[in-house]
């Protein structure tokens, strides 16, 4: 399969995870799948970093973890967004959007006046 995807920027992963679990409790695989699907497979996250990030967010209190039963009847760890996490998501999403617009604006700007 062609790897025409983009590496997820550092710091963006947290934001994507928060967004992924904001739709409802899901496990790590679910998070990874959601990111792939939501970005049409453009963004492929590095799975080796996904889990430490999940645990880190949990220990910060932004997401909760609970053992549950998956859709195919397996024992899996489900993550859900906490109130604190939701607030964080709002802040980070706003920051990231501003950042993206700024970069985009710079790229679209007319050439430097001579």
């Amino acid at each position, binding site marked *: 399969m062609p790897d025409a995807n983009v590496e997820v920027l550092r710091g963006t992963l947290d934001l994507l995870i928060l967004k992924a679990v904001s739709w409802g409790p899901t496990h790590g*695989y679910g998070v990874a799948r959601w990111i792939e699907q939501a970005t049409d497979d453009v963004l492929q996250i590095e799975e080796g970093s*996904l*889990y430490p990030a999940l645990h880190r967010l949990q220990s910060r209190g932004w997401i909760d973890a609970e053992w549950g039963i998956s859709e195919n009847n397996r024992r899996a760890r489900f993550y859900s967004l906490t109130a604190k996490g939701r607030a964080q998501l709002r802040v980070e999403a706003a920051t990231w959007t501003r950042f993206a617009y700024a970069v985009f604006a710079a790229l679209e700007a007319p050439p430097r006046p001579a």
Partner: protein
Amino acid sequence: MSSAPNPRRPPAWRRYLSFWGPDIGADVDDELRFHLEMRAAEYAARGLTPAAARSRAEQRFGSIHRAREACAEIDRQQARAEHHAHMLLALRQDTVYALRVLRRQWLPALAAVLCMAVGVSATTAMFSVADTLLLRPLPYPNGDRLVAISTTRVGASSSIGVSSYLDYRDWRDAQHSFDDMGAIGGTNFIMLHGEPRRVSASLVSASFFPTFGISAELGRVFAAADDRPGAAPVMVVSDAFARQEFGEPSRALGENITLNGIARTIVGVIPDRWRYPSRGETWLPIATGGYSGFSNGVDNPSSRGNRNLQVFGALHRGVPLDRARRELAAIAARLQHEWPGSNAQMTTALTPMREQYVGDIRGSLVAVIGATMLVLLIACANVAALQLARAWARTREIAVRAAIGASRGRIVRQLLTESVVLSLAGGALGTVLAIWARELIRRAVAPNTPAWMTFDIDGRVLLGAFGVSMLAGIAFGLAPALRLADLRAGTALRHATVGSPRSRLQRAFVIAEVAISIILVVSASLALESVWRIDRIPLGIDPAGVVTFEVTMQSARYDQPPARARLVDEIEEQLRAMPGVIGAGAADRMPINGCCSQFPMVIQGQPVTKGHEPFVTGTIATPGYFATLHVRLVSGRTFNASDDARAPNAMVINQTFADKYWPRGDALGHQVNTGVGFATIVGVVQDVKQATIFGAPEPQFFRPYAQDPWTRAVFAIRARGDLAQVASAARRVVRSIDPTMPIFDVQTLADAFDEATLTTRSLSRLLVAFAGIALLLAATGLYGLISFLVERRTRELGLRVALGAEPSRVARMVIGQAVALAAVGVAVGLGGAMLAAKWLAAALYGVTPRESSAYLLAVLILGAASLAASYGPARRASRADPMDALRAE
């Protein structure tokens, strides 16, 4: 809620892991495995073989190992943080719960707090005293290096304490162990600066202040040039003295003060904390201070026998005390050869300065520390016993808590929290009590301590008290807590209903309390016995109703001996004429603590080698002395008015003197020379306690004041009525005869006697107080235990009564139980008491460790206490109603 009926404990390693919460490593593995399987399933669905799908999934994931480690580390950190937060929360819950429980059972809680308070206050006070005496540095800059050097007779157990100026000078010149040596001697001076009054003055060598490391806060201390005969008369004063006389220390510098008729210039002021002696006011150089050792000229060898200076040395850093001892002993040996007349048999004794303060009181210090520890122990045992009883009463509550899932650790922690809360409350209260107890202990241990020994309760002491109460709380709360927590839920519930008290531990505590009480009661009765014996020491005089005061004839008016004799005669005569006065007399020193003019003695017809004359104590007395003090005449006569300067020299000796040299009882008429020519023995009197009241009587002679009128005279008046009024009348009498003559050291002989025996009296008071506290605590413990046992056996006792047992028999049974317990305690305690008595007897006068009366008394007291303690419960038991008993179940 899911029940967890798992009776088997997991293996030890698993328990260790679960200490940090769930098994983190396994959980992370599960989580990652799930991910890989899901991904593999995804690939398989797209048509890969299972093996290929799996390896593809793993490839996609990256380093599984690294992810696993990272996740586990994050989780472990989080678990640790949660654990700490949880502990804090639990501690707060435990404390709140403990307070609630203690409020509900406030009476036993209060009892426990009071017990702890008693123990902690005794310990805290003791620690502050011991800290000051043993640990805190001396106030002088060179304090840790200061050594007292005194002259000692070879083979004597106690040193003379003082040395002669010439010996001091030779030691100082020859030694290499000390940075410097200084000498100091005390005298009384009459100061004219406003009202004539006596000031404390010390004669010091120029090297004295540097030896102690003392420097002046204003002006200077002495230079070598100040301490030479003929130098300008100067003085150094204390800050307190300068303030008192001049308002401001800086105004004192350069001022003149007349001391004993000589105007002296103040050249320096020293800080009060460096005073030696600790209440000293002025210091003069030896050479210009009128030191008696110089009366025949400094270098006259006759001065060498004149020993009245204290000598101190500041040891070189790094020189061991033993080396200094050997060096000075060698110098002293040389002086023995060179000056056999004065120095035969004389060597030196070196004591570190701190020892000087601690040495005398070591015995009582050890006794009091021991007693304090015992009181603390007994208090702790009581708290533990109370805790046990309280805990037993709560067996059902604890069983329920265990049944609904409280872990063993949690229950132990809860119970421990309770006892620590109790102990801390007791500790806080005890610290307040300690301030009062400290004064009691200080008086018992060290009644005459220097001013710098303040016995503060400072941060360290408070920390000590806090530590003691914490430790006591944990140590004595642990046993009951463990005992209770070990009950399996089922057994505990059964215990609570059936009531078969497994109170062995509690019994052990009560037995220990009784045993410790016995030790303290025996100690207290030994001390009381000692006081009783002290009060019956034959003093040779009758101190009741006698007041004494001192005058010193220093001015030029009394330069001639006859003038002094006339003055003393006149004062004595007028004192006798005062209303209410039965008799009056005078001597250079009064008995009881009038230490100690010693004179070399030669008996006619009994030749001795020069320098080997025996020394005897001598007193110069007027005829009225013997009658006034009620000194009993054994044979011959005492002095009368005709024993004056013109009459042949007369001498009265004491019984010990007579027995020692004339064992056949024919002392009268013999001739004795004590330095001023031969005198005839005209009488023998009963021994009088002169230097100390505790020592064995020493040979003592008396000479008529009229034949050797010293400059110092102490008058004794025996009178009816208020001695204070007699004293002020006497002051008026002396003033009417010579307005410039102050009188000082006004004191009743009874007070002097009390002062001399203060240590033993205070120690006995303290031990009695401690024994009383111990008895009270032990009786309370016994009462608590017996009540508890009776309560536990309500049903059995009720049944017995129902079946026809006589109430009195039931009561006897209960009392018998208490007495049996006490008997075991007594038996255990007697051994310890004998050991304690051995130590104590060394510090007390006139008692041996085998005073059977003390042990008998202690056993009787403990027996009575155990009867008293069991009376109430026994009454209750004998009235047990079978119906009540049955209903109680």
